């Protein structure tokens, strides 16, 4: 089993580093992570409101100008990335855990449990995701971004659950699983130790996809003005810029376009990574 996952890891690594677009994606993601999590230690967190410096253009003192309150845009850009990325990661962890546990057990056990899981995925998939998220977000007025991440995770697991279930259905017919069953190794051990590691790469790809979906949702909630406006967050910057019609003012553009570009580039980087990972893990695609 350890050999299996080690093999997957090296295949994945090669897939990313050998494909130019996958490598670009990885560099983009790494650069943004360093910018966000390294930059925190280099900028002055105290970013005062300055009524005399509203919407200042780019300059040596303010690399990206200032915003509608006279705050330094570059500082806000550095500090605003951590939250969406953490929330995205949290939501993805929740989604993947639920999907892996439910999907694997449903596919392996079949019967009543399987029916129940399928019914649950049907219902959850059908609920209009953004609408339900909006209702919940306005339900808790002072909802914390962490809660939002948790809720996003609780609403987005069905797709992955289905495909993991389908894969377990076919994996459990293989000989090595039959061998494990004959040894009476126990359901939990067979599912989580013998079956799931075979899907490690696939699960990892879906983790990344889940991160992009969660970032889409949390930035969207900020854009709709449904989350508390106290935090430093790229989504909030875009919302404030849009509300203040910053797009009409050329010198205010950095406050709108800089966070927009960061989110877009991060998403693009993640998606490029998944595409080349998919190719590396799927021989059918690789040979073509």
């Amino acid at each position, binding site marked *: 089993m350890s050999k299996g996952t080690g093999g997957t890891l090296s295949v994945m690594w090669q897939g990313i580093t050998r494909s130019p677009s996958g490598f670009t994606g990885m560099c983009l993601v790494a650069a943004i992570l360093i910018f966000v999590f390294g930059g925190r230690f280099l900028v002055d967190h105290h970013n005062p409101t300055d009524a005399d410096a509203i919407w200042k253009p780019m300059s040596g003192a303010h690399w990206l100008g200032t915003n509608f309150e006279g705050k330094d845009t570059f500082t806000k850009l550095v500090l605003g990335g951590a939250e969406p990325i953490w929330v995205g990661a949290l939501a993805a962890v929740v989604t993947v855990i639920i999907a892996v546990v439910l999907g694997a057990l449903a596919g392996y056990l079949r019967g009543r449990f399987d029916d129940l899981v399928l019914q649950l995925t049907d*219902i959850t998939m*059908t609920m209009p995701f953004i609408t339900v998220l909006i209702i919940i977000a306005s339900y808790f007025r002072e909802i914390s971004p962490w809660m939002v991440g948790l809720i996003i995770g609780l609403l987005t697991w069905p797709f992955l659950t289905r495909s993991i279930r389908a894969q377990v259905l076919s994996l459990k017919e293989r000989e090595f699983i039959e061998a494990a069953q004959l040894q009476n190794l126990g359901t939990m051990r067979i599912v989580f130790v013998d079956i799931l590691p075979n899907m490690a790469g696939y699960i990892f790809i879906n983790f990344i996809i889940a991160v992009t979906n969660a970032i889409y949702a949390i930035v969207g909630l900020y854009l709709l003005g449904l989350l508390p406006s106290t935090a430093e967050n790229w989504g909030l910057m875009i919302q404030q810029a849009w509300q203040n019609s910053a797009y009409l003012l050329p010198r205010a553009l950095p406050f709108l376009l800089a966070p927009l570009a960061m989110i877009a580039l991060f998403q693009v980087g993640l998606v490029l990574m998944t595409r080349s990972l998919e190719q590396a893990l799927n021989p059918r695609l690789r040979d073509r």
Partner: protein
Amino acid sequence: MSDQALSPTAKAPPPSPPPRPPGSGSLIGRVWRAYAFRRFRRAVLVVFIVTNAGFFLMRAMPGDPVDVLAGQISQRGVSPVEARALAIQSLAFDPDAPIWKQWWEYFSGLATGDMGTSVTQVGVPVSDVILKVLPWTLFSVGAGVTIAITLGLLLGMLMAYRRNSRVDHALSLIASVMGAIPNYLIAIALVTLGSTVFGVIDFLKMRGRYSQGVEIGFNLEFIGDALYHGILPIATYTLATVGTWMLVMKAATTEVLGDDYVTVARARGLTDKRIALTYVGRNAVLPLVPQVAIALATVIGGAILVEQVLAYEGLGLLTLESVNNRDYFVLQGVLVIGTSVVVFTNWIADLVYGRLDPRVRVSDVEVTS
């Protein structure tokens, strides 16, 4: 893909002949009917459960329509207590009734097609409120998705035919990038780049559904104006979805191109155009049919954000407004309609697809029974 090996003939062109009509008393006919009906029952159950979830979730939200209405009324200089009484009077339902009674009233109404009346636009039936905005969302999303699918299918086939060429690599990269950027950011970027940076569009004129003073009706002025205002949302939906379709179609075409009957068709000396259209194209598009229905529903769900950015008053903005005003009935109506559309388009797509490709139907019966 494993079933492909089982029935290699099923994929041969022309796509398998349509099965016998369901009315015929054959065994297949009866199974087909049972299958369709089983899926239908399940669809109704799902809609019922989601509607219930919505019903209780909304009533659990802090603040209710009475608060919102009373707030509006007390701004006219009425004392809060009186405002509250007035608000309750103007409502078509009794907000203080026990919840089971409200539940029964709502669901018995729903069973006869009555979705109640709006709270914010006092007395207006929910169906009217929704019908006023729905065409706009359907128009913008529908046009955007249609353009995206057409473009995506053509470019995807091109990519598959020119696999590993420079065109393929460039288009694949563009497709991945377009598919990765959130649709609302595309809308913002379009507006900002188009208006302020390049100065080719005037967003202040283009925002909204149509210009003020233009009469809604079947006349050239209105249609032209609606199309003009539709440019930005349609372009946004197109750009946001075209990448995915390109990649999906590329994968599907690549799959088909490797099949034996394509090789045979080539050996028979058929023209490339004929092979591309009737042999490759048809068989590559077929498995994508159910995805179109799902895609449409997803895009309509994401329309909330795009409509908010572009101030395009469609279903999405109505949803947002109803949440803010605690307009239970409109929101319920949006949920019921939204869920039904998703569930029943899936149901129809399933059945249509089952008719087009009999393998699906047979395998489903095997799995579920």
